[in-house]
């Protein structure tokens, strides 16, 4: 007898692997430029900054969302859902937190499954019923299991490095350049560095966004299989997406110098610009996938 209905999505895995490979390649390009023309210190400095951010990701995210860890006595229902999901998935139970805001949202963060925290807002708990809330939490726990904080921090490294390098090159071009006027070949080097880092920045921005969308799809998928209820997750998505559309999703790391660069219409027609830049896949894509999983659960094993 066949023993599993839980078929892997090889296409998604391959696309994700390809994106990670391209990001790695970009890092090699940028790293060699940096090391060749500057020194290791820039890389180490930015790396250190990101390590701190990754290490304290649970506290940073909780603090910025105004979340507060709750005990099982304070939130018995939320804890019971997380308990059961963790037993189903055989993963350690993360800390459970609630953020007192009416924005319907939930997130999971933390550098490892042992140090993870899952947070739901009072807004999402008010709007969703228990099945839907369970679907949302299973999606968040899948992010924890897939170690998305670590993966996305690593992925963001290239982009942050490129943004930093661009700035450095610009400043040294503006201020240091005058001093070195008589130094032959000073200007072209700065030009090359600026050009390389701008291109790397643009590409890494697109790639991290693509990776983020794939990881959302992977988390939807794993969450739906964990509960066996893809439709509950779909209904939660429909319910909150209408309200989430009005909420800004701009991230701090996104506020980088070359954002305007991307709005050049260098994109093939028929390709929506917003779909390239968003961190989450479109609602249709997510619902499509959940529909396919629902059908898979019904196939004879």
């Amino acid at each position: 007898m066949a023993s599993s209905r839980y078929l892997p999505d090889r296409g998604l895995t391959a696309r994700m692997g390809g994106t990670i490979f391209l990001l790695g390649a970009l890092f090699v390009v940028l790293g060699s430029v940096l090391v060749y023309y500057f020194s290791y210190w820039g890389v180490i400095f930015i790396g250190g900054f990101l390590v701190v951010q990754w290490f304290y990701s649970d506290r940073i995210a909780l603090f910025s969302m105004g979340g507060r860890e709750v005990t099982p006595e304070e939130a018995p229902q939320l804890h019971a859902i997380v308990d059961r999901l963790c037993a189903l998935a055989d993963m350690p139970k993360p800390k459970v937190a609630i953020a007192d805001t009416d924005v319907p949202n939930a997130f999971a963060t933390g550098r490892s499954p042992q140090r993870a925290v899952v947070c739901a807002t009072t807004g999402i708990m008010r709007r969703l019923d228990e099945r839907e809330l369970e679907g949302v939490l299973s999606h968040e726990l899948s992010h924890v299991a897939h170690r998305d904080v670590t993966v996305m921090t690593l992925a963001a490294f290239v982009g942050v490095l490129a943004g930093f390098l661009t700035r450095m090159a610009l400043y040294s071009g503006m201020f240091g350049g005058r001093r070195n006027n008589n130094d032959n070949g000073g200007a072209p080097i700065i030009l090359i560095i600026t050009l390389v880092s701008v291109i790397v920045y643009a590409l890494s921005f697109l790639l991290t966004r693509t990776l983020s969308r794939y990881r959302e799809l992977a988390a939807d998928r794993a969450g739906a299989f964990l509960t066996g209820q893809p439709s509950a997750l779909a209904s939660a998505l429909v319910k909150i997406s209408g309200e989430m559309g009005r909420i800004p999703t701009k991230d701090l790391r996104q506020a980088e110098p070359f954002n305007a660069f991307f709005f050049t219409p260098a994109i093939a027609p028929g390709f929506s610009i917003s779909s390239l830049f968003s961190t989450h896949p479109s609602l249709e894509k997510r619902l499509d996938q959940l529909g396919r999983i629902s059908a898979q659960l019904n196939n004879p094993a």
Partner: protein
Amino acid sequence: MKWLDAALGRSKETKPNLDSLFALPDAAVTLQAAMSVRPTGRGAVCFRAAEGAAFSQVQGDLQQLLDADGGPKVEVSTDSYGFTWLLVTHEQDELPALVTELHAVNSTLQDNGFAPALLCSLVGFEAQGDRPVGLVYLYKRGTFYPFAPKGPEMRDNTLELQVRAAVGADLPIEPDLARWFPVWGAPGL
């Protein structure tokens, strides 16, 4: 290659471990000898029903299979978290038969591809003074833990730890206390 699975966002199905379930009758003998904790003859399987007709079909077949032995019918209930409980009732001294039936439920679900849906099995016991205590079996870990409710949303931790000490040699006990989650109002307690 755990890191590769994580990097590519792949989830592996967690395989349940059903073998330790058969160690239960021996542990029951120990419990009775050491603490006068007797089995009630009731046990339940808890799983997360998947949506769709395929799962309903399997669940229907299961109930027929369990009812076929002429004993008391299995009772089906759904708790407030959407998990389904199949309650099997036997005589007090028929623990091996009870365990065999619980195992049948699990292996049927597993054979039909719904192994990840299994949450836990619970076998009911009674300590002196009509205090209920259950041994909960976690499939994904292959371990047991005791659960003794005392009043609404209170646990008798003393009794639970006594049970743990008594059966520690017979059963694999869940070492991570954070995974001893409460199953309030579980059928079979």
